């Protein structure tokens, strides 16, 4: 996973867009600093922070020892003391070691104190499978985190969002978890020279369509769009909704698209049982049951720790073909 030093470009990679977002935040606000394992000398395990150490120095681009609970909690404490920390956890699996701090402290301190304080912290982490990293490096737990009151959860799926969500998250007075799907870093796309902050509260229709809604986010967006292309070929017009914010969910956008199409497939890389897709399905039932012409379907990951072998990993994950089949079932 090599990379070149960033230049603002018309076709940046997702990695470069994230890096540019961090650089902008570090320049604009001296309370912002980045802390995590190998974010400095190494340049970031996925090279997202490459070059930032040279520009901002070791105090603000702070390498930490392997102490996930310690440095995530330190980020919470620094936020309480007026800083605006960006804490990077290399991979979502390692965040389990910091879950006590995230759930018992970051998410609860404001409430437990009766509103005396707030925790303006952003935690970034890599999520998802697709790189044959096997069962301890491939979880997709962002939807699981979305269960926790007191935090917000966002998942940039596009270059614009990679560039624009971080700053908005840093303005948020409460803790925001930002999930970067590992397969997106090398993707690239056009980005306006003046691209900047974007809202992080609303879902976005990435493709308009009238026959069926496919609701997804993060690493699955591209797969949904690919499936939509295929289906367009056989005359099925799919509307693709990118949730963007997993907590809170944009109920209005969800019900709008379902009311338009009356049919829905939710695509989520999480393990099927108890995944975010279940919450989306349940809400559709609660909010627009009588608009549905067919039961909501879900395309999720197989309920198996991610296998290493490529053919097994591919079979375990949502794929365009499986999305196409699900859509054909709901429009049948």
């Amino acid at each position: 996973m090599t990379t070149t030093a960033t230049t603002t470009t018309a076709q940046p990679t997702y990695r470069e867009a994230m890096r540019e977002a961090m650089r902008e935040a570090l320049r604009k606000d001296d309370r912002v600093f980045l802390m995590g394992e190998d974010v400095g000398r190494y340049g970031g395990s996925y090279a997202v922070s490459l070059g930032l150490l040279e520009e901002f120095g070791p105090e603000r681009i702070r390498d930490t020892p392997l102490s996930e609970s310690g440095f995530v909690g330190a980020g919470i404490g620094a936020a309480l003391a007026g800083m605006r920390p960006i804490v990077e956890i290399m991979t979502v699996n390692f965040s389990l070691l910091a879950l006590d701090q995230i759930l018992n402290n970051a998410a609860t301190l404001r409430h437990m104190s009766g509103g005396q304080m707030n925790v303006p912290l952003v935690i970034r982490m890599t999520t998802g499978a697709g790189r044959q990293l096997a069962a301890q490096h491939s979880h997709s737990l962002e939807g699981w985190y979305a269960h926790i009151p007191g935090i917000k959860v966002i998942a940039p799926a596009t270059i614009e969002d990679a560039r624009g969500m971080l700053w908005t998250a840093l303005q948020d007075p409460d803790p925001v978890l930002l999930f970067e799907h590992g397969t997106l870093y090398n993707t690239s796309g056009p980005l306006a020279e003046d691209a900047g902050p974007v809202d992080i509260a609303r879902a976005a229709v990435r493709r308009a369509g009238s026959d069926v809604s496919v609701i997804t986010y993060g690493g699955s967006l591209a797969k949904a769009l690919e499936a939509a292309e295929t289906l367009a070929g056989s005359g099925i017009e799919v509307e693709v909704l990118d949730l963007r914010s997993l907590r809170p969910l944009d109920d209005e956008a969800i019900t709008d698209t379902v009311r338009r199409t009356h049919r829905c497939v939710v695509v989520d890389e999480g393990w099927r049982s108890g995944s975010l897709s279940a919450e989306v399905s349940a809400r559709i039932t609660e909010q627009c049951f009588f608009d549905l012409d067919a039961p909501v379907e879900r395309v999720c990951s197989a309920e198996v720790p991610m296998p290493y072998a490529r053919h097994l990993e591919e079979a375990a994950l949502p794929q365009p073909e499986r999305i196409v089949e699900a859509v054909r079932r709901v429009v049948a």
Partner: protein
Amino acid sequence: MSRRTATVHPPAPEASPAAKHRLELLRDMMRIRLFEERCVELYSASKIRGFLHVAVGEEAVAVGVMRALEDQDAIVSTYREHGHALARGVPMDSVMAEMYGKVTGCSRGRGGSMHLFDVDRRFYGGNAIVAGGLPLAVGLALADKMRNRPTVTVCFFGDGAFAEGEFHECCNLAALWQLPILFACENNLYAMGTALERAQAETDLALRAASYGMASWPVDGMDVLAVEQATRVAVDRIRGGGGPCFLELRTYRFRAHSMYDPERYRDKAEVERWRERDPLDQLSTRMREDHELTQEQQNALGAEVKAEVDRAVEAAEAAELEPLEDLTRFVYTESEM
């Protein structure tokens, strides 16, 4: 911002500054003792619910440490923190109201006994996860250091926290980054029902903390003057840029771990031995020997403190509950919701 709320009991005219000071220490310890003894009664009367952990016997630690701090210093505490809060100057009314779950409580009744907060006094709360407050303290100290603020963050925790990984991660981070933090370990020899020697392979806690390369030493936690003195030494060193310090404050809890604890794990004789070293008795006896305190003065002081507790209970009884429609407030910052 004032750390003390009520005025100090007027000492006899001839009292020296040192005598005045000891009288204040005695008074602060009595406030904690009488407040907590009352809480135990109120628990039995079902006025207070949830878990209640009192620190009767450990008052010298709270008072001695707090006395050595400045207003700008920060504190992170545990679920056994009534004494820390009172000694820091959190008004007794607001602490008692919190025990009652009233909206006038220092956490609006949402936290209860284990979650007392007072951000104006940089009291960053009771934390009910053993060792869970330590990473917060590391972060507070990191921020203050990055901002070149001359502040010290004190983190209280018990001997039991030594077994938790979070504690070790924090010792390393604080020592590696030379953060202005004081690790205040309240070693009362038990973690619930587990004696120190059945929980720790090496029971010399000050020695183990020293293995992180920080200044570390044990202190008689039953002697408030010794605790204050040791804390001053540590805090001066930390404020001077010397990096973190660790104090093993050797103390003992006279009462049960919580209201549910039948104390099967230790014998009465041991408790009695420690009661002979009651920090309040030790100080008052010494003051009387030094003719700094008469029995009358002591009684008057007790009456005064009792009256403060009575007022706190009355106020808590009379206070309002938070309206139900506010249930989901304070989950997110409102301007944003």
